[in-house]
Structures are given as structure tokens and as C-alpha cells.
């Protein structure tokens, strides 16, 4: 497995676990989140950065040659295809969030709806990369 594929797996696993916990907490707390919302989101972002940096460094130490090598043409193509797919998901999600916003929900719901769209698009991007790496394409 290449370094780039491992990075994509790190992204999928860490985002699923950490944002999954965050969104579960939001649902549990209901519409009156107050300061928890900001603290929870800040903690989530920090946790995500720490986990991804630590895991990426660990993978890079295990295979330093792969980690130092620049992306080759196939890896760039895989990234471009995945980004195109994620952009479609992001655009669709934003449009849906706009309609959701028209229903005049509490602001915390609006914020989290946009965050879900962003996280989903990023998961889509990493997921598409993994599928292409697995196929060898």
C-alpha cells in the first residue's frame, strides 16, 4: 500500500471517528447547545489535527522513501478525479443546506448542516482515492 493510500485511510478513519463522535454529541444535546457547540467543535478540530498528524508521522517513519517522494502522474490523476467527485457532492450538499436553511431552523443546526456537508465531501474525496488505489487505476 502506497503512502498516499495510507494517508487517505488515515483521513477516512480519523474523520469518521472524531466527527462521528461530535455529531452524535450534537444530536444528544438537542437544539440548545450554547457554549458546548463552540467548545465541542474546537475540540473536534484540534483532536482531528493531532490524530492525523501523529498517524501520518508514524506512517512516514515506517516508509520514509515513499513519504518523501513527490506525487507521480497517476497519483495526481487519482487526486483530481476524487476532488471532482467531492466537489459534486459538496455543491449538492450546499444546495440542500440552503433549502434546509430556508425552513428557519436554529442557527446551530444551520452551522452543523454545513459542517456535515463539508465532512461528507472530504470523506467522499478520500473514499474515491482509496477505491482508485485499490483498483490500481
Amino acid at each position, binding site marked *: 500500500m502506497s503512502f498516499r493510500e495510507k494517508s487517505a485511510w488515515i483521513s477516512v478513519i480519523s474523520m469518521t471517528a472524531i466527527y462521528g463522535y461530535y455529531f452524535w454529541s450534537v444530536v444528544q444535546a438537542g437544539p440548545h447547545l450554547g457554549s458546548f457547540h463552540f467548545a465541542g467543535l474546537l475540540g473536534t478540530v484540534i483532536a482531528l489535527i493531532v490524530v492525523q498528524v501523529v498517524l501520518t508521522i508514524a506512517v512516514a517513519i515506517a516508509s520514509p522513501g515513499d513519504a518523501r517522494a513527490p506525487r507521480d502522474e497517476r497519483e495526481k490523476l487519482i487526486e483530481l478525479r476524487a476532488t471532482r467527485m467531492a466537489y459534486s457532492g459538496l455543491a449538492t450538499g450546499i444546495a440542500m443546506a440552503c433549502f434546509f436553511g430556508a425552513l428557519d431552523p436554529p442557527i446551530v443546526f444551520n452551522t452543523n448542516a454545513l459542517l456535515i456537508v463539508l465532512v461528507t465531501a472530504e470523506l467522499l474525496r478520500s473514499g474515491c482515492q482509496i477505491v482508485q488505489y485499490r483498483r*490500481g487505476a
Partner: protein
Amino acid sequence: MGVIRNDIRRLRFEHGEMTQQQLADKIELTRQTVNAIEQGKYSPSLEAAFRISAVFGKPLEAVFRYEEG
């Protein structure tokens, strides 16, 4: 739609049993990309195809060929 076939695997073995990693290092691609090219799962750019041919000292058409599907 046609496919691009190649003889990279045979040529590697004819050149001192060169590994995929050794070939990848010479042409600045990853080993996984060389493997994908060998298996016909990825068609390299023209530039990469020329670099691969140059490693084996062969013209492009001796390494790659286009077959109608």
C-alpha cells in the same frame, strides 16, 4: 475502445531481473504505478512511456502497442 498493452514485465527480466521498484526509481514513478502500467490498469503519459522505453534502450513501439478492443 482499444487498450494499450506492454512488454515491461518481460523487458525487466531481460534486463537483469530488474524489480518494479528499480524501474520506478529510474523513471520517477511509484512502484504501484509501474505495477498498474504493467497490468494494463493505467495508461502512462507519453512522457512516462518514452522514459520507460529509454530505460530498456528500445523504441516506444517495442515496449507499448495499441490493440483494438
